[in-house]
């Protein structure tokens, strides 16, 4: 395929993916806005008002970046895992497999779709947050870069999950048993400085911590870990997962007989 043909194919995938989640926005965008407004109301408003400030921030303000990022992570992952798995399940993945699209292009198209959903949800949750508190942005470039890289990372994770999945159960195992614990333990609701020594070190093995920390830096200018470390780590993960997804697809894992 020529570069312009590849461009057309990429746009086709992206538009198809966006239309898919926008058509069913009640299932794909609304739930995050509702759930996260409950978090803001209960943890931020009701409980948070009884708590001390963290790093000089009101508790509500402290949790806003993490809660937004949590929604972004869940939704970019969920979009790709459910869309690609149902393409496998209904067999229309074959439409792509018989086409001359290179494997990396299919991965890129689905990843872009997942990023779009993550970002749309992110904007929706941010709008909800703005209703509870005054939002500030310390550094737009950091907020945007962390947002893009995080959606990319989890969209790729969703793609790999979908490749291996054989049933609808398999697409909820990772979100339930891996993603949710990692985000809850990733410093969304607390600073790791508040943990005892061992757990502080253990938390540093959790990649979500670095994203939450960097995103919080983007909004408030305070971070648990150095910004450069966060970016290096997220970017490293993105490269590894992209390479893995392309390699698996080329090997036909889960899609070619």
């Amino acid at each position, binding site marked *: 395929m020529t570069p312009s043909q590849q461009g057309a*194919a990429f746009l086709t995938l992206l538009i198809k993916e966006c239309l898919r989640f926008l058509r069913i926005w009640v299932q794909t965008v609304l739930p995050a806005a509702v759930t996260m407004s409950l978090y803001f109301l209960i943890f931020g408003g009701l409980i948070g008002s009884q708590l001390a400030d963290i790093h000089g921030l009101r508790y509500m303000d402290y949790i806003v970046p993490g809660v937004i990022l949590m929604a972004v992570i869940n939704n970019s992952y969920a979009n790709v895992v459910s869309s690609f798995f149902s393409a496998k399940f*209904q067999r229309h993945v074959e*439409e792509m497999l018989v*086409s001359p699209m290179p494997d990396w292009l299919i991965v890129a198209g689905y990843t872009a779709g997942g990023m779009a959903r993550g970002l749309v949800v992110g904007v929706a949750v941010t709008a909800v947050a703005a209703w509870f508190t005054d939002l500030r942005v310390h550094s737009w470039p950091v907020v945007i870069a962390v947002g893009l890289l995080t959606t990319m990372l989890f969209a790729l994770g969703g793609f790999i999950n979908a490749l291996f999945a054989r049933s609808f159960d398999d697409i909820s195992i990772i979100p339930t048993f891996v993603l949710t614990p990692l985000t809850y333990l990733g410093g969304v609701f607390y600073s790791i400085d508040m943990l005892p020594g061992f757990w502080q070190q253990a938390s540093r093995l959790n990649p979500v911590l670095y994203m939450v920390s960097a995103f919080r830096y983007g909004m408030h200018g305070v971070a648990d870990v150095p910004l450069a470390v966060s970016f290096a780590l997220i970017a490293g993960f993105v490269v590894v997962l992209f390479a893995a997804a392309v390699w698996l697809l080329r090997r036909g894992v889960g899609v070619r007989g």
Partner: protein
Amino acid sequence: MTTPALEIEHLTKTYRNGVRALRGVDLRVEEGEFFALLGPNGAGKSTTIGIICSLVRKSGGRVAVFGHDIDHEMEAAKSCIGLVPQEFNFNQFEPVEEIVINQAGYYGISRRRARPRAEACLRQLGLWDRRRVMARELSGGQKRRLMIARALVHEPRMLILDEPTAGVDIEVRRSMWAFLRETNARGTTIILTTHYLEEAEALCRRVAIIDHGRTIENSAMRDLLMQLHMETFILNTREALAEVPAVEGYTLRRVDEHTLEADVERDRSVNGLFEQLSRQGVHVLSMRNKSNRLEELFLRRVGRAGA
């Protein structure tokens, strides 16, 4: 010699569960041919097609599409092929037109250029009025036609159809035949698998038969049919017959009062039979083949005659 549209050598496939679906398939399809790929259930037709289109990974052998080896020039090979698979494989929850436009997109055709192409394909297959409908709302025959429209939207040089007429009514089947003939006449190479052998006989000039994962026949339809030394006809007579009329050089059997079965060897004319019957005052009202000729050959070749 010109580059063949499809060349397959010693193709083998063992599925992960250990099933040896292909044990050595060889095929050669020239450009512009209308080619029948026949074989009993489980012979390996869909597996062979799957490998050509890269839905299935081969275990061994070589496949080249218009000279592009699928191991080295996969993209070029795929661009030449349009596939109509055996089973429905579109998104049931997507509108008909969207399915065709997206497929064009996967071949690198922008939406703007894909729209008129999709319209042309859908019109040709009688689906334009249904373009906004969700695919799952189509009837079975319409779904088959949707898959043909989808396969043609990027104007492939070779169209591969895996049982496109399964479960399609006679009228639609006839119109599909006409459409496929036209498509072939415009220069598209066509490979067709079907279990309706009269369909293969009517459409295809060359035929290959696969059985147990091996090619057991690959020849011109005419040559294949020539192998049939004897044909059996069923005759309906005006007169009620109490017993089998005595004729020389033909074997007759009485089925019922008004029906005879006649075995006619290929080098004998049917006229001789009629002459002898007329002389005995027996008038034949109508006559038909007992079974399709290709069917008879097919059953013999795959070793199940009389089974």
